Structures are given as C-alpha cells and as structure tokens.
C-alpha cells in the first residue's frame, strides 16, 4: 500500500516535497571558515592530521584545549562522543586525538582532528540560519546549553536583517535577564551579539546555496560571544 524504499536524503518516503532538495553538511572546519568570512566570531582552531600534530598545535594555542573529530559527514559530534574537553597537557591531547581517529566510521569519509582553545562561560546561546518553508531564510537566536530545546526560548527574523532588527531580537528573548551580569561574568555585549546575527544574515545573502547554519554553542566569554562549533548545510 505504501511505497517501500530507502529514505531519500532530506526527504521522507511517500511525502514528495518540492521544497526539500538534497543537501550536504560541511565539516566543522569548513563551516567555521565560511561563517567567519562574514564576521562571525569564532575560536581559533587548528586542523591536525594525527596525534603528534594535535599535541603540537595545542602547545601553540595554549592549554587547556578541546579536541574534536572533524569531517564533512560528521554532523552530531557530541551525541557520538567525538568532542574531548579540557585537555590540560600534550599527553592528554595525544591520546584524545588517537581515540577520536580510532572512533571514525567508514561512512564519515576523510577525517581530521580539530584542536581549539577551551573556551568556557556560564552562558551559552545558539544562533543560526534556517529556511522557513513559508517565509524563506530566517536568522535565529536562542538560549543554548543542555536545556535549550526544553526552554525553547528562540527568536527569528527574516533575512536580511540590520543591526536594529538584531537588537529587537535580543530584547524579545524571554530569558533576556541572562544578558545582564551573571555569576561574576560581565553583562553580554549586546552590540557584539547583534553583529553575530547580522553576520549570519550577510552569509545567507551572499551564499545562495546555504540551506541552514548552526552556531552551537555560542559561548559568552568575558561578555563577548564566540562560536565554538559550527555546522553549515548547503544544497548539493
């Protein structure tokens, strides 16, 4: 009665949809590079081919660092345990890198290890781009962290946005109290946060093949937002 077959990429069996085209994700390193070109603030990252290179990169960045497995087909690193946080010395980096490379699956394709300084802050946001089926491309800001989806405090605007739109998005968060001084950390620099959203909007305008983008988390480090992970989806 129902058509039986493999799931089409990005589609659902039996529910044809003209709006859902075939897409692919970029690796974290490529995602970060693409968005940084438009002004998204990102943590400095180094791509390493093996454990020794990873340890050397960590030495240059300064400890502690994080190590992540990076590849075009890897979209959900945390769920797969492919992120190692707070690595304090070269030995820790070396063994983490070796474990990450060993955890790669054949379907992950070519993989590398990404080393970045460990950025921590008590406040995390999510920002991104998402194509709405009715209204078109939107830019989004939400409260991040492990409770993000339960809290579901997220605001949207249509691309393109100007800085005033971004400021209104920030003001529209239900939990905007989080932007005030918090647990010994200074208030969030609203203008800097607004500029992240404007940068995403610019990226969406300039890159027509861009389907979605996630900056998750966008950590508030000394009051300023820094993207420590990024995932960009593009049409094939």
């Amino acid at each position: 009665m129902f058509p039986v077959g493999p799931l089409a990429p990005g589609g659902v069996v039996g529910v044809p949809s003209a709006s859902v085209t075939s897409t692919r994700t970029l690796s974290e390193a490529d995602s970060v590079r693409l968005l940084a070109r438009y002004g998204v603030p990102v943590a400095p990252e180094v791509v390493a081919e093996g454990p020794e290179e990873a340890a050397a990169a960590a030495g240059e960045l300064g400890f502690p660092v994080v190590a992540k497995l990076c590849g075009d087909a890897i979209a959900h690193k945390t769920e797969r345990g492919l992120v190692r946080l707070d690595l304090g010395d070269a030995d820790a980096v070396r063994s983490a890198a070796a474990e990450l490379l060993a955890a790669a699956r054949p379907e992950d394709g070519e993989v590398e290890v990404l080393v970045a300084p460990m950025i921590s802050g008590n406040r995390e946001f999510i920002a991104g781009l998402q194509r709405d089926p009715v209204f078109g491309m939107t830019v989004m800001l939400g409260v991040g962290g492990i409770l993000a989806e339960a809290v579901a405090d997220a605001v949207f605007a249509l691309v393109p946005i100007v800085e005033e739109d971004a400021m209104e998005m920030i003001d529209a968060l239900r939990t905007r109290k989080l932007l005030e001084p918090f647990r010994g950390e200074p208030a969030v620099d609203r203008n800097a946060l607004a500029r992240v959203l404007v940068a995403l909007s610019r990226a969406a305008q300039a890159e027509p093949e861009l389907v979605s983008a996630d900056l998750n988390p966008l950590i508030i480090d000394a009051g300023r937002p820094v993207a420590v992970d990024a995932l960009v989806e593009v049409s094939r």
Partner: protein
Amino acid sequence: MSLRREHFEALFEPRGVVVAGASTHPGKFGFVSLHNLLASGYQGAVHATNLAGETVLGIQTVRSIDDLPSGEIDLMFVCTPASTNPDLLRSAAAKGIRAAFITSAGYGEAGEEGRRAQRELVDLADSLDMIVVGPNGQGVVSTPAHLCAQIVAPYPPAGRIGVASQSGNFVSSFMNFAVGSGIGISRAVSAGNAAQVGVTDFLRYYSEDEATGVGLAYVEGIDDGPGFVDGLAEAASRMPVVLVKGGATAGGARAASSHTGALATDDAVFDGVCRQLGVVRAPTVESAYETAASFVTQPLPRGPRTAVLTTAGGWGVVTADAIHRSSLELVDLPEDLVAAIDTKLPPRWSRGNPVDMAGGETRDTIPEVMRLIAEHDAVDAIIYLGLGIQSNQASMMARGPFYPDHGLERIVAYHERQDRRFAEAAAAVSAETGKPILTATELAATDPANAGPVAVRESGRLCYRSADRAVAALDAMWRYARHRRRHGLGV
C-alpha cells in the same frame, strides 16, 4: 492584475450599489444584505436584481443587470449561485461597475471543481479590470459612505479602525467590540476565499486611506509568505497594524536536522516577522481590538516611563506587577514631583509610584494630581484607576428605598458629576500634554451605564476593563513607537 486606488474606492465609496439576487425571503442573503444596506443610511442609489422582478423592501428590482442604468453604479453585491456569476460579472462590467463582493459559496472551499471556478472567476475579473472580493465572504462596511453591504450585523459606529479579515465572523466580532466600546470603524471587509484580493491588499489601501488610522486584521493560512510580508511591510510602514493569527501556516513539515530547525516553530517565525515589521501581534481578538482602539484614541507614548494613579492601594500594586512584566517601566517619581503632589494630598498618600491617593482626595484633587504627573518630563504615560467608584455608590443610593430624601438626590448628582469630570480630565490632560492616559475599571464591563465609563466613552476614548488590559495596550503602543524610533522611522 494590479489593483489600483480606484478599485478600492469603487468598493468602499460606491456612487451606487446593486444587490444581485435580491430575495423576498427575510432569511436569505439576498434579503438581509439589501435590508442592511437600506437600514444603515447609505446615500447613493440602491438597485437590486431578482429573477421574477419582484419588489423587495420597497425596491423595484429588475430581472437583469442589463436593465440597470450605465455609469451610475460602482459596486455589485452578489448573492447568486456560483454558476451564474461569470455572466453577471460581464454584464456588470458593461454597465461600468468596477467592484463586486461575492458571498456565493461553491468556490475554492468546495473541492477541485470549485477551485477551478475560482481561478476562472479571478481571470475573468482581471480581464474586466474589476476588483472581486470573496467569494464566500460576508460583506463590506464603510462608515464614511454609510455603507453596510453585508449579510451579518452589526453596522458599527464610525471611527478610524480599518478591519480586514480572512474570517467573516471575526469582522462581526470586531464590529461588535466597536458597538460595545464606542471606538468605531472606518472600513471593514471579509476577504472570504481571498481569490483576487487578500488581507494585506486591504491593509495597504487602508494605510493610504485618510479615514483610517490603524489596521486591524485576522489571518489564518498564509500560502505566499514573501507576498504577505511585502504587503504587510508596506502597510505597516505607513500606519500601525494590529494582527491576530489563527492556525498554523501552510507549507508542511520543516526539516529539523539542525538545532535551529528544531526551535523554528511556525509561531516563533511568524512572531519574528511581526516584530521585524513593527506589526503588533495580539494574543486574542479582544486584545487586538483594544490595542487598535488605543492607537486611534491615545497619543503614542514617547517613552516607557509609566505612572499609575489610583484611589486605592491594591489596584496599584497589581498594575505595577503588570508593568514589570511588560516593556514599560514603573517610573521612580522625582523629588520635585513628590513635593508638588504633597501640596495636593494629605501625608498618607504613597509618596511614590503607584501614586496611591489613599482616599485623601477632595473635590479637585484627581484632575490636579493627574495634571502634575502628566506635565512632568519624567513621565511618558499614565494609567488611571478608580474611576466610577463614587457613581457606583450613587447608583446604589438611587435605587435604594431612601432616594431622593436625606440629601441623596444631591449627593448622587455630585458623585456622577465628579466621575464625569475625572474622565473628561483624563482625555483633556492627555490631549494637552500629548501623553497617553489610560483609564481602567471593571465597571466598563460590569456596569457600562456608570457615569465614569459613560464619560470616558463620550470623551472618545476606550475605558479599559482592567488595569492589565490597559497595560497590555500601552505596552503594545510603546513597542511600536520604540520600533519606529530604532529604525529611524517617523511616528
């Protein structure tokens, strides 16, 4: 087809109207629409067609549009079956009729055949250069023309609210609120299936219409997102727009492979669209009406700093709570204002905001204190509570067994006079200072005949049924004003 101003003028300011399909049966659309048209003071010529050529409500009908004069009628109100409508439109166009309102069902809502009929109707209207509203709509109201061409009641009082709705029943709801509150309507139209003309087309026209000061809309499904946004943006750039949305947007399931996607609900995205355009999205129909009514009866606040003026403590506390939950600020009273109020009230007044007069007021206190607060630079808006208390007591006295003896006649008149003064002062001080002063009392709902709410209504303003609702309306106005300012738009 691109609709022009003259199309909308044919609809809203017709020189003459013809009801196509008039009926002698008082339960039929063809009777009710003619009745409402004749009962509401429309000054232009009224014609009607009827297959048998009967006289309906004193109007001698003609059997065919072809028998009508040329160049004198602008609007045709159609109550005929869908199958007859194409010929009807052609005959109407030949008589110079530029607008048709179609109540007939059996179009887009009625399966594939109906959808085809609807597409053909639009193509025909386009080729005849006619505006065709509906089909499956309830009618059009235009108070500047005393026009009530609709199959439902009521005919609302005249005012500056322009209504456009995807649901005809919500047009009625909004007009019922107009009757109840006295804050009237300029134009109102039910878009029905919105085959040729949609809600945002009407809003765009209203935004250039001198009779209209605010747009009030109800929308459901949105098929053409970018078209909707463009129309709404144009309207909202020229006038405040208040909107209620029912149901989910069309477009089907969303891809949710990203975190952003998982958080993107229809509602959150629509909320964002409204915020970005400076459109007030109201949570309920009632709140939408009150917000629209506020835009056309109160000056826009220049800032968020709000003072509460109350005759009793508890009301002020609850209002302060509501202000804290909003974008408004409960202003800290400056020392010079406290000192000025000190000269008007005994020392037990709250000496802070809310300004709780604590029963210390005498004959002239309320207008005087209200003026002191409104004239101070630190205050952008006032919410005034406690109107009607005296008249409430007066009404009990007037109905009791001792009236008019024991001095009751005199005190009842005094109480009612005082409440009228307070309501008039709120409107006058607001107009003079250019600052909103919103009066709230549940008596507006529980005893609309109370002299307080009656006087607010006569002053041309809305008497809010609770402080929370006054705060909600003021909050919406301030967010609108702030949006205009932030984006460098005039207000």
